[in-house]
């Protein structure tokens, strides 16, 4: 071995030349608190291998040592926690996909307390035999209350990565893209597809998960068009980059193919640059792509074979071995045994041999391999042992020997005496599993193909086109040809290009294909012992699922592959079983005596690879997480120390505390001041819908329960809105502005849904009606002055409305000028006091509000927020829809029979519903008042009522508290509740057993605590 870096940690396994790495740029990184060096162009995995690091994790269940097995997205073992600081932690990063950068800090996520010494491995060794499928289900099920304790222990021991406890310093964003053709995958087929679609004039995006385009060409050196393959790749990329209609993304995983050709691309923009993104760059970006057609050129993942101890570090995929040697100039070991069931496995032996290292043997499971590669192996002098298999790997924490035995020609049992070969690396290839994942995201099931022993994409709803290895193509020339056709077909099917797609077709680049020998169907390699007695034969490395476990679970009755998956956890890891699933299905199929096609696959769902929460959130965080709505007077509220509450997206002033006040002190002061003199509320958030048209009045009569026929211009009326089921849905005051013109107000939260409701009935049921709706919520600033001095206050700022109590009566509205602003003033009241609701165009809101305070000083004008509003209205028994009602309350239930006009000619919405048998029965829950026996006890809202607190649990509950406050004006606590048959039980006691064990007694009463005769609001 040649040492390039002097010092303690040297890249002993780096080859002296070759690879797509920059040897002039040495990078230092830290892994498990030790420093190592690598080169620019390395992945974390290739750099670790270059330094001879062969244990990168401990397994999930048995805590066995695990090494790097693959070189790409399918890697199950090398899962890292990356991040130099707490804030930049990223869990579960695949070392095979993380580009190396200077200063990278990482650690294994598995292994507690360390990968080298792991106390759970003792559990694995001692209890390993007993930890069958469903071990955790069976062992930790009882007693049930202990689960939370077990779970913490299991999670810690299993050691999945952890996310940061600090705020992520990076930013992320999303982009919307609209293209004609989206090409997924930048290998030979994808590049051809993108090029042919682009030449046809299509707008194209091509994305690939790797750091550069080329796919398998990056390590599988062949000539294309008489030039080195990578020169050819560069030439294609140059043409694509020169085309303004093409976007080419690298380090970009297409994570989902959703309905109607909506794709998500997760672009890792800065993961290769450093621990945090450079200034001004987003760390990751999600491209949300809407494409007319989609070409899937996602390639295939090599399937390792399943044999005894196949998880020992040193067991790898054949193609991964080639990648490390050719692309990164790294030797994953010193002496190699290859086991293959097809021709492709030979390549890694050639790559190993060609750099002058020892290939012990190629073990071919086929009795008579007849492809060109067999001859090439012989020419190199490599021993090929045919009709045999590596049935077991031996070694402590690294492969030391391969146990080889002759097998029968179906590969189902061992026929010869096992012999041992000394080696430290065993590369295996059972064939290739097309990366069908994206084709399945919209519900399509993949189809088994007996020619390649793999699943290929089925027909998808949008007729996505699969090209290359993913569709089962076996040779490079087929891949190129399919790519060209796919790109042309995709462009031709675009509506936007209909009939205009250029016919400038590409000719297939020239490549020399070798003669391929027939592959053999091989998944589980037989052993001299049965799977349950043989050394563990792993199917899913990340979840420690063995062949024996799959057989046991089928014996225990789990026959559907979906059930087997959930029982054994096969395919549940962060790798989603990219290497193991097909092997697992084959083993299950064989145990059940079925074909793999009959057994089928589990469902592949988005995302293809894990996506960070940062990328998902994008810029939708902090202030941009959800829109905030502010009233025109918001600034004043902030300046005057208001506390705010969220009402939907609105920020509403909640209460206005003064220095030293507790919340209840504030509420007491605000409520008393309002009834004593005058208070003011910002009510701008109430929904306002402008309704016009000659049938507007009739329409109101149909959607409200009460009568509207006689409401004159200048008058207002409270309206109650029900659903067809007869349950109260919304309420508010509607004013007649002119004969065919009304203004409806809704609850703050109901504004949007009520508008949709009105539109629904107008558009679908009564389109013949002449009526129009428009939201004017934001157009008006609304301030309500309430209290005995409100008239005197209004008179100070309004001279053109006659405020005389008989000229401007309760439930009248008048247009005029308030503090110089055009205004509509409504004499309506939600407090029971004399009250005016002043509406001015929104931009005058703050000015009018401030003018009122200027003139309100002499009346001690007191601002109050939503909490005092709630108390004041409860003192009068006014309901809040959504608080005192819950979708099961009719107007009758809440004692609002006065707002129901059953003599209207049209059967208004809610009338028939209210007449249903269940709505008419006695003993319904009805809205009543409550007074606690102890006047200082305030019931919790939501408390459940019982008639007899001495009964045994579960008690019969008869209702619950909907609103509950301490009222300074009444001098005691008051509450509203829905109680069975409550309206007939005035004066009776109900009891509220609370969570702390106490029981509160309260008497049912009516809800009109203040001014029961209603003299004040009419004064």
């Amino acid at each position: 071995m040649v040492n390039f870096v002097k010092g303690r940690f040297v890249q002993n396994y780096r080859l002296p030349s070759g690879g797509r790495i920059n040897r002039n740029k040495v990078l230092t990184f830290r892994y498990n608190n030790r420093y190592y060096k690598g080169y620019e162009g390395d992945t974390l995995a290739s750099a670790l291998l270059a330094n001879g690091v062969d244990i990168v994790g401990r397994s999930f269940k048995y805590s066995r040592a695990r090494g790097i097995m693959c070189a790409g997205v399918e890697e199950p073992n090398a899962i890292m926690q990356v991040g130099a600081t707490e804030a930049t932690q990223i869990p579960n990063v695949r070392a095979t996909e993380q580009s190396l950068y200077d200063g990278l800090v990482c650690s294994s996520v598995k292994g507690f307390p360390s990968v080298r010494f792991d106390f759970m491995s003792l559990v694995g060794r001692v209890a390993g035999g007993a930890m069958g499928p469903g071990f955790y289900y069976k062992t930790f099920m009882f007693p049930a209350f202990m689960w939370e304790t077990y779970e913490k222990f299991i999670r810690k021991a299993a050691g999945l990565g952890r996310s940061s406890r600090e705020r992520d310093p990076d930013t992320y964003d999303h982009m919307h893209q609209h293209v004609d053709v989206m090409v997924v995958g930048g290998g030979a087929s994808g590049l051809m597809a993108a090029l042919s679609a682009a030449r046809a004039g299509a707008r194209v995006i091509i994305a690939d998960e790797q750091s550069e385009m080329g796919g398998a060409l990056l390590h599988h050196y062949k000539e294309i068009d008489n030039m080195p393959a990578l020169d050819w790749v560069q030439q294609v990329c140059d043409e694509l980059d020169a085309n303004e209609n093409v976007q080419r993304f690298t380090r970009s995983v297409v994570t989902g193919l959703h309905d109607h050709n909506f794709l998500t691309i997760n672009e890792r923009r800065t993961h290769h640059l450093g621990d945090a993104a450079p200034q001004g760059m987003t760390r990751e970006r999600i491209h949300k792509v809407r494409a007319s057609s989609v070409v899937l050129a996602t390639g295939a993942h090599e399937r390792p074979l399943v044999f005894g101890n196949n998880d020992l570090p040193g067991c790898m995929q054949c193609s991964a071995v080639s990648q490390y040697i050719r692309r990164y100039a790294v030797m994953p070991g010193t002496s190699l045994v290859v086991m293959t069931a097809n021709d492709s496995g030979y390549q890694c032996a050639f790559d190993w041999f060609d750099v002058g290292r020892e290939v012990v043997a190629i073990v071919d499971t086929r009795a008579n391999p007849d492809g060109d590669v067999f001859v090439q192996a012989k020419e190199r002098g490599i021993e090929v042992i045919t009709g045999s298999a590596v049935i077991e790997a031996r070694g402590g924490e690294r492969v030391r020997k391969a146990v080889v035995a002759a097998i029968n020609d179906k590969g189902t049992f061992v026929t010869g005496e096992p012999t041992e070969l000394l080696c430290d690396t065993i590369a295996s290839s059972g064939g290739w599993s097309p990366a069908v994942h994206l084709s399945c995201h919209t519900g399509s099931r993949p189809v088994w193909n007996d020619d390649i022993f793999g699943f290929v994409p089925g027909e998808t709803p949008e007729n996505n086109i699969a090209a290359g290895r993913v569709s089962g193509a076996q040779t490079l020339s087929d891949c190129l040809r399919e790519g060209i056709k796919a790109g042309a077909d995709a462009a031709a099917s675009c509506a936007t290009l209909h009939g205009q797609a250029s016919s400038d077709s590409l000719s297939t680049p020239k490549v020399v294909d070798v003669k391929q020998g027939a592959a053999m169907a091989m998944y589980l390699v037989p052993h001299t012992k049965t799977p349950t007695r043989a050394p563990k034969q792993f199917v899913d490395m990340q979840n420690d699922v063995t062949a024996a476990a799959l057989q046991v679970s089928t014996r225990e009755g789990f026959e559907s592959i979906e059930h087997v998956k959930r029982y054994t956890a096969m395919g549940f890891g962060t790798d989603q079983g990219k290497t193991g699933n097909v092997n697992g299905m084959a083993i299950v199929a064989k145990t059940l005596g079925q074909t793999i096609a009959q057994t089928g696959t589990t469902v592949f769902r988005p995302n293809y690879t894990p996506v960070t929460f940062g990328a998902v959130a994008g810029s939708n965080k902090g202030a941009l997480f959800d829109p905030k709505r502010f009233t025109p007077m918001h600034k004043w509220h902030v300046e005057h120390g208001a506390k705010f509450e969220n009402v939907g997206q609105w920020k509403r002033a909640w209460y206005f505390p003064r220095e030293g006040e507790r919340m209840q002190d504030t509420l007491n002061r605000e409520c008393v001041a309002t009834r004593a003199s005058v208070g003011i509320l910002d009510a701008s958030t109430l929904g306002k819908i402008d309704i016009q048209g000659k049938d507007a009045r009739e329409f109101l009569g149909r959607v409200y329960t009460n009568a509207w026929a006689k409401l004159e211009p200048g008058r207002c009326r409270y309206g109650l809105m029900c659903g067809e089921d007869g349950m109260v849905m919304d309420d508010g005051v509607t004013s007649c502005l002119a004969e065919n013109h009304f203004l409806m107000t809704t609850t703050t939260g109901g504004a949007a849904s009520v508008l949709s409701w009105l539109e629904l009935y107008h558009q679908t049921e009564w389109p013949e009606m002449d009526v129009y709706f428009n939201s004017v919520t934001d157009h008006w600033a609304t301030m309500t002055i309430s209290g005995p001095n409100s008239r005197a206050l209004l008179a100070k700022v309004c001279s053109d409305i006659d405020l005389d109590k008989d000229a401007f009566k309760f439930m009248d509205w008048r247009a005029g000028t308030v503090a110089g602003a055009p205004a509509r003033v409504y004499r309506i009241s939600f407090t029971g006091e004399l009250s005016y609701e002043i509406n001015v165009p929104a931009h005058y809101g703050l000015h009018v509000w401030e003018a009122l305070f200027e003139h309100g000083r002499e009346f001690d004008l007191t601002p109050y927020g939503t909490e005092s509003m709630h108390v004041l209205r409860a003192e009068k028994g006014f309901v809040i829809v959504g608080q005192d009602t819950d979708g099961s309350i009719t107007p009758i239930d809440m004692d609002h029979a006065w707002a129901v006009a059953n003599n209207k000619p049209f059967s208004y919405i809610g009338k028939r519903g209210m007449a249903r048998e269940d709505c008419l029965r006695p003993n319904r829950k009805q809205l009543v008042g409550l007074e606690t026996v102890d006047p200082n006890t305030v019931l919790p809202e939501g408390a459940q009522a019982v008639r007899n607190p001495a009964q045994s649990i579960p008690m019969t509950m008869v209702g619950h508290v909907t609103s509950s406050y301490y009222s300074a004006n009444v001098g005691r606590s008051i509450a509203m509740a829905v109680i069975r048959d409550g309206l007939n039980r005035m004066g009776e006691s109900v009891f509220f057993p609370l969570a702390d064990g106490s029981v509160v007694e309260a008497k049912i009463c009516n809800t009109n605590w203040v001014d029961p005769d209603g003299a004040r609001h009419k004064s």
Partner: protein
Amino acid sequence: MFVIYCPYCEEHREEEEFHASGQAHLARPLDPDNCTDKEWGDFLYFRKNPRGLHQELWQHTAGCRKFFNITRDTVSYKILETYKVGESPKVNLEDASHG
């Protein structure tokens, strides 16, 4: 994420602009007061939940605010047609599901 053709705006727009409102063609009984409880209950609560083609009512909430109908396959999520309220669907559910 669907892409939906609004028959009023006459444009394909993203699903984010729309709101689904359940089964289409639910006519409110003309004389509710003379419906039996069963008839009214059927109108109120009973909805189809087909595997396959379904006619749905959608609203272009963040667009023209118009309600319109969609014939959609609940398995493939393909939208076969959109049409205005008051128009008849061109896709015959019976024929399509057997064909």
